[in-house]
């Protein structure tokens, strides 16, 4: 356990020592606020809710999370520090979990820093704060799933750009599966039960369900199993590379 905290601390330090952390947080703020007010028509909707704020999260995360996670393993491999890491008395799973948690904590910090929007909406009206909290939880869990996928693509290559592009593509598919337009197209070719089954594998389906304020165990299980599965695949890839 102490090893995991040590590794998380180091990983977080490396975010904040480089401009990446600050650039990321600023862009995260600007894009969440920008999409809420300009694309989401926050004021015109005239509703005391953060629906317009959370609506765009699956699309923003599509680029922002891979940017945060692309270097997690690729950079270790590129600079050779992976040789140092794997010859220390740290197990593979400890290393994999620590890296993931560090990235997830960092995203959590960025998400928490959007708190002024909660104050704003509470100042302007009387929103259902339960729904807001549930939506934040859903958004955080979804971010974790994106990150787990990015961890996998990052362990595949020493090139951060390749890692970024791969994870954007995979995550894009995971969002697309549940998108209304895409489901309609699928319905034309496939029986309804099949297209619905496919759409249950989508990030957006589960995120939308949590954002309505209902924390269903199925949605939690979905995101947690994506994270768990991603991390196991991540560890397996790294093990295979050791033996290659």
């Amino acid at each position: 356990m102490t090893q995991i905290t040590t590794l998380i601390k180091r990983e977080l330090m490396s975010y904040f020592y480089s401009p990446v952390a600050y650039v990321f947080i600023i862009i995260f703020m600007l894009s969440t606020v920008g999409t809420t007010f300009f694309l989401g028509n926050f004021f015109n909707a005239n509703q005391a809710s953060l629906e317009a704020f959370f609506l765009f999260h699956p699309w923003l995360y599509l680029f922002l999370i891979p940017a945060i996670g692309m270097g997690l393993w690729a950079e270790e491999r590129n600079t050779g520090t992976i040789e140092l890491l794997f010859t220390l008395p740290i197990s593979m799973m400890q290393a994999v979990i620590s890296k993931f948690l560090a990235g997830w904590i960092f995203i959590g910090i960025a998400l928490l820093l959007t708190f002024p929007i909660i104050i704003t909406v509470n100042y302007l009206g009387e929103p259902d704060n339960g729904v807001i909290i549930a939506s934040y939880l859903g958004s955080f869990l979804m971010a974790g799933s994106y990150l787990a996928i990015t961890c996998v693509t990052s362990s595949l290559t020493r090139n951060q750009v390749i890692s970024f592009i791969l994870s954007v593509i995979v995550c894009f598919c995971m969002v697309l599966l549940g998108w209304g337009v895409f489901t309609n197209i699928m319905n034309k070719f496939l029986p309804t039960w099949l297209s619905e089954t496919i759409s249950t594998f989508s990030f957006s389906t589960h995120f939308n369900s949590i954002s309505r304020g209902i924390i269903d165990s199925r949605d939690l299980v979905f995101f947690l199993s994506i994270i768990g599965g991603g991390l196991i695949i991540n560890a397996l890839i790294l093990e295979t590379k050791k033996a290659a």
Partner: protein
Amino acid sequence: MIEVDRLSKKYGSLVAVDNISFQVNKGEILGFLGPNGAGKSTTMKMLSCFITPTSGTARIGGKDILTESMAVREILGYLPESAPSYKSMTVLEFLVFIAETRGFSGQEKSNRVERIIELTTLNSARFQTIDTLSKGFRQRVGFAQALIHDPPVLILDEPTDGLDPNQKQEVRALIRKMAEEKAIILSTHILEEMEAVCTRAVIINHGRIVADGSPQTLLSHSKMFNTVTVKLTDNLEATTIESLRKLDGINDVKTFAPPRPEDPFTVQIFPNRKQDILGQVKDCLKTNNIEISEIYREKGFMDEVFRNLTLGG
């Protein structure tokens, strides 16, 4: 302390390390030599549990690298080639990080970090970020991280690479000082370094061990081993050369004119079977009343031995 047992590593059809076995005992400094691409680093990476061997295994301090990798990593200090480290950290932060992952905390942790900073003379750089350090300092940081837990087994991949001559001396002295209670493997391509530091040398070529012995034993393979070289103010007369040739066990006598007029004449006397002929030669020259300015036995040339072993000459 280190027992390597038929270790092999294949990358597809390429055999990087081919069935090598050797042992290193406590107190030994084993020099691991070979041309680039001979499999030195691959072997060290397998011993440090960074890559998995294709076949064979090794035991370090009695622990198997395949089945007890965690225990092996605890008793091993490893300096990877070109000493990678987290460049955005300061020297102190980095060493504290290593100490924590090695399970040290509190006072013990700070004591160890302080001791190692002193040992590797990193004090002047302790608050500098690693990416601002010179190559020599980075190498020492790598050395420090390998030593922080005072491991009984050390594996050092080119420990003096990138150091200036003074730093090289310091590192070699440090290695020799630690050797008494440790088993050390170090790879190098500097032959003088091997002669200066190692108690034993293993030379590998194309993944196979081609020589294993003390530096002296290896030198005895040199063509020049035990050849007697004599420096003279005047050239030898033909009769003296003839009487030298007639001595027992002498194979050949060669004379060399001085390259510059002020240099001495040189005569080399080659023994038949590399046996010691110094006494005989001295006596013979004495009876012929030859004035000698210098006479010595050649100890052989390591680079010649190395070339012959690795080029198959």
